[in-house]
């Protein structure tokens, strides 16, 4: 179909698939950032480190405890979420009266501590994490060969986005969360334990990042620097999509992932910067972002 451009159909579909996977990661991570930002008014710079910790929990569980991928999917969000709750209750909580900038600086400092610690302990060369047995191999679809694990990641991320959306838009807890985003004082007056809600929200956001880390572990190398580099791209995604809308985060994340994947096919040199260029273009045309109301 695109042979006349010197591009094989297999290559094109392969890159679209990778774009879809990267896009789902952008979507879940920006979703987590949006949830945390909504209630805590903090841009969580530790998000990347939390994603990296999730991948390392999976790797550590396999290497030290002999626990496989499926256990890691359960364990990583619990561990990373617990660390997140610890961070919120001991550190972040002290800053809610201060300027938003301090929250960013604090979480940036924490990201440095975590990343530096992991780099000291595990080096920067990265560790391999095997695809679980059940998901190895590939399926022939006729027009392309689909690696099973990648299909699973797309499916799992889509489910994760859907579950989060349902949780926030269709449950009582989610209603509290949305109410807290609008007006925490009023919500408190109705007898809701807002500080607890804030703690749980941060823990949930962190757990989401940790879970994404497990999904990513078999695709990318498990590496202490994997988180922050990804997070900066996610920031660009967030600037494009805005932090105000859940659906907006998902659409923007997946959309920009696909754009990046297609760039890899047609102009590989530009793939590292295409998302930043897209951000610049959006800033020029729609300064408030695609879905943002502006802030």
């Amino acid at each position, binding site marked *: 179909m695109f042979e006349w451009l010197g591009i094989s159909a297999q290559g094109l579909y392969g890159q679209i698939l990778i774009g879809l996977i990267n896009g789902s990661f952008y979507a879940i991570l920006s979703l987590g950032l949006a949830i945390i930002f909504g209630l805590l008014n903090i841009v969580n710079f530790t998000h990347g480190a939390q994603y990296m910790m999730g991948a390392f929990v999976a790797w550590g569980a396999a290497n030290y405890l002999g626990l496989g991928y499926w256990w890691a999917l359960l364990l990583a969000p619990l561990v990373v979420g617990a660390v997140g709750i610890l961070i919120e209750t001991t550190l972040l909580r002290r800053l809610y009266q201060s*300027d938003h*900038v301090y929250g960013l*600086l604090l979480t*940036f*400092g924490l990201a440095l*501590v975590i990343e*530096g610690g992991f780099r000291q302990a595990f080096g920067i060369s990265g560790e391999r994490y095997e695809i679980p047995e059940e998901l190895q191999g590939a399926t022939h679809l006729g027009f392309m060969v689909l690696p099973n694990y990648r299909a699973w990641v797309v499916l799992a991320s889509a489910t994760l986005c859907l579950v989060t959306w349902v949780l926030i838009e269709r449950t009582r807890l989610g209603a509290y969360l949305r109410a807290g985003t609008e007006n925490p004082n009023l919500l408190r007056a109705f007898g809701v334990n807002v500080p607890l809600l804030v703690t749980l929200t941060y823990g949930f956001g962190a757990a989401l990042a940790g879970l994404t880390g497990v999904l990513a572990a078999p695709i990318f190398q498990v590496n202490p620097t994997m988180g922050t580099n990804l997070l900066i791209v996610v920031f660009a995604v967030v600037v494009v999509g805005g932090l105000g809308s859940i659906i907006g985060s998902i659409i923007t994340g997946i959309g920009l992932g696909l754009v990046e994947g297609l760039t890899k096919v047609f102009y590989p040199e530009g793939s590292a910067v295409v998302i*930043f260029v897209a951000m610049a273009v959006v800033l020029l045309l729609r300064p408030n972002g695609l879905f943002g109301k502006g802030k």
Partner: protein
Amino acid sequence: MNVMTWSRQRTGFVLLVALGLLAPFVIYPIFLMKALCFALFACALNLLLGYAGLLSFGHAAFFGGAAYVTGYVMTVLSWPVEAGLLAGTVFGLLLGVVFGGLAIRRQGLYFTMVTLALAQMVFFLCLQIKATGGEDGLQGIPRGALFGVLDLNQSLNLYYVVFAIFLAGFVFIYRVVHSPFGNVLKAIRENEPRAISLGYNAERHKLVAFILSAGLAGLAGSTKAIVFQLASLTDVHWSMSGEVVLMTLVGGMGTLFGPVVGAVFVVSLDHLLAPFGSWFTVVMGVIFVACVLLFKKGIVGSLRWPSKPARTSSADTPAATA
């Protein structure tokens, strides 16, 4: 500014000049020059963060980008050193026009994220294009002779040139901060809607501050390239942007001497912890956390007399536009 502040600032300035003139006889000049480059870099960031209340997390792009430009024109095109410094500074200014123009379209935390993302784009460009030498960077940048007369390979000559550049930048920032423009900038930081209602064009003031800050960061980067004869990916990496924010934070945002003190502090720390690998990153992170939680005013900010209630509230939240 009252009389007491002014006399204290004058004392501080005299002390700074005296220390700067005598230091190379006591301390290793290369270390001092590194500290001076970073001090100028931190002062440039402070102009934006401390006085305009805008937190840029992308200043490494101006610093490192200018270092590459200076390195390129001096090694490949064999330009003289003054032209190299000028080229780097102009590059910083121009990049500041582009980045500033984009970033001030968003406010608060979005502004910070935009600057960080744009700087990361510069990092990838430096990694990919041929002129920057990829992973190796540009090495062996010649120092040459200033105006063809003063041999900069003599470390003492180089030191005093670097010190003069730093002082020029420092005095320039002082003049900007204490000009009517600087006062409007502070007014915008404190209360942007009110400044706008008084008829000031907030966007244009912020943009000019951004461009000046970027140009000075470029000058610092160019100077650094000549001192170390090297422009590398470290200079454009996001951790460099974080480091300069830390210098400003430790020293005291919105104080004239804070960034200088902070830069000396962080550069010394870097020097001490150099043999311990990634522990420097960890310690930097811990200091970030400690500053934010316990020490928001920084070293110089805490030295101020607490007898000025009208200003203490502004010192608590120097970046209050978010």
